[in-house]
């Protein structure tokens, strides 16, 4: 019935009592002679009334107390700094820096390209190939794997989590001095379980520091797959710092890490 179609846009406002008297009478008239439409309206009304009757149960969940406190502070932060784009200190800010999936798609493409290079020891080939593998690991870990760790973990705690490395990497003790917040450490996807992958946020941006034992490489900074890769060796270990940040930031952070681990 074409009238039923015409009724469509008016059903919800009819149920909600939002129609003017004239329109409401029209709808009433139709419903009197159309059982299917009448059922349909009755069903919609029943659900609306059920939800309204059970509102208390549906509104059972409340905001956590700490959230309430932080949001009160939001007012002071807003007043103190009205134009900043910064945000308040958060709980486990894992999701904020998760890279968009397209970065992973790029990494996946490169995995296909450099696949053959995984066979040899990580540092046997050119530095550039090594860095390509490490950039892929960096992208994968920040993009996909959700490390179940908090921000600002203490270095000694994190060091304990990669005990199976077989050697003991030292981490800078006070990374926050250089704007670094330590997320955690894992075994690098490549390097056969011997390479440590330390994950940081540097001023909110993902930054990885890879540590390779018993190797030495000439110091240099490469541009690999849209990332800066800084390589240096000290004390029989090779370090590779990987980030998308500008070279200036890279050099400053490298200097800091070198000094901290001297």
């Amino acid at each position, binding site marked *: 019935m074409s009238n039923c179609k015409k009724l469509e846009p008016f059903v919800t406002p009819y149920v909600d009592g939002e129609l003017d008297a004239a329109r409401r009478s029209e709808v009433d008239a139709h419903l009197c002679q159309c059982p299917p439409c009448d*059922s*349909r309206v009755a*069903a919609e*009304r029943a659900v*609306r009334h059920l939800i309204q009757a059970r509102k208390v149960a*549906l*509104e059972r969940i409340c905001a956590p107390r700490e959230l309430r406190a932080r949001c009160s502070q939001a007012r002071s932060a807003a007043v103190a700094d009205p134009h900043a784009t910064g945000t308040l200190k958060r709980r486990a800010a894992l999701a904020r820096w998760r890279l968009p999936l397209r970065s992973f798609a790029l990494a996946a493409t490169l995995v296909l390209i450099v696949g053959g290079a995984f066979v040899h020891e990580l540092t046997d080939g050119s530095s550039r190939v090594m860095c390509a593998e490490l950039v892929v690991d960096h992208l994968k870990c920040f993009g996909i794997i959700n490390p179940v760790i908090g921000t600002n973990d203490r270095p000694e705690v994190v060091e304990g989590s990669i005990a199976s490395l077989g050697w003991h990497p030292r981490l800078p003790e006070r990374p926050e001095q250089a704007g670094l917040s330590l997320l955690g450490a894992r075994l690098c996807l490549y390097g056969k379980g011997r390479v440590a992958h330390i994950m940081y946020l540097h001023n909110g941006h993902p930054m990885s520091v890879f540590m390779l034992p018993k190797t030495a490489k000439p110091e240099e900074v490469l541009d690999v797959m849209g990332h800066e890769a800084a390589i240096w060796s000290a004390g029989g270990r090779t370090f590779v710092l990987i980030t998308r940040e500008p070279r200036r930031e890279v050099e400053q952070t490298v200097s800091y890490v070198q000094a901290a681990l001297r």
Partner: protein
Amino acid sequence: MPEPVKRTARAVAFEAEALAAIDSLYRTALRLTRDPADAEDLVQDTYLKAFRAADRFEPGTNLRAWLFTILHNTARNRARDRARESVAIDSEAVDRAVEAPPPGLRDAAETPESILLRDTMDPELQAAVDALPEAFREAVWLRDVEEFTYAEIAQMLEIPIGTVMSRISRGRRMLFDALNHVKLQEA
């Protein structure tokens, strides 16, 4: 050290009224993000933006609706930034979809309303609401629980008013079918 800010009575009242909505905002944030940590971030960001934009709020208009609009805006921007694979609902396709007519009344003495009210347990209702596709769930919740107007909902969700009404209609009927389906199975 910044000077302490003098707060007018109006500013104090504004803050109190804004914070009064935190439970509702958190519930909606939880539905949108499906993750408590993300939900907290979303609510916090919403308040930060709201307090920064406080002078743009027109006194006398609906403060809760304003906050909900900021929340939904922020949630949409985050989802876009993360390039999530979310299924976008094509409003017109939804409206054009052929629907099966709802089941007719089985027993003339009972109304759908009385059956539902009598037989639906709270957890069942919550689960049925949670199971709705987001577009319909939001429309029904914002209307029947939060009691916003169609115009306010249209602004929050950035959809036309007609779409708001059709989504509410469809959402309510999906709930009805879902809840009755359970009853038929239990019978």
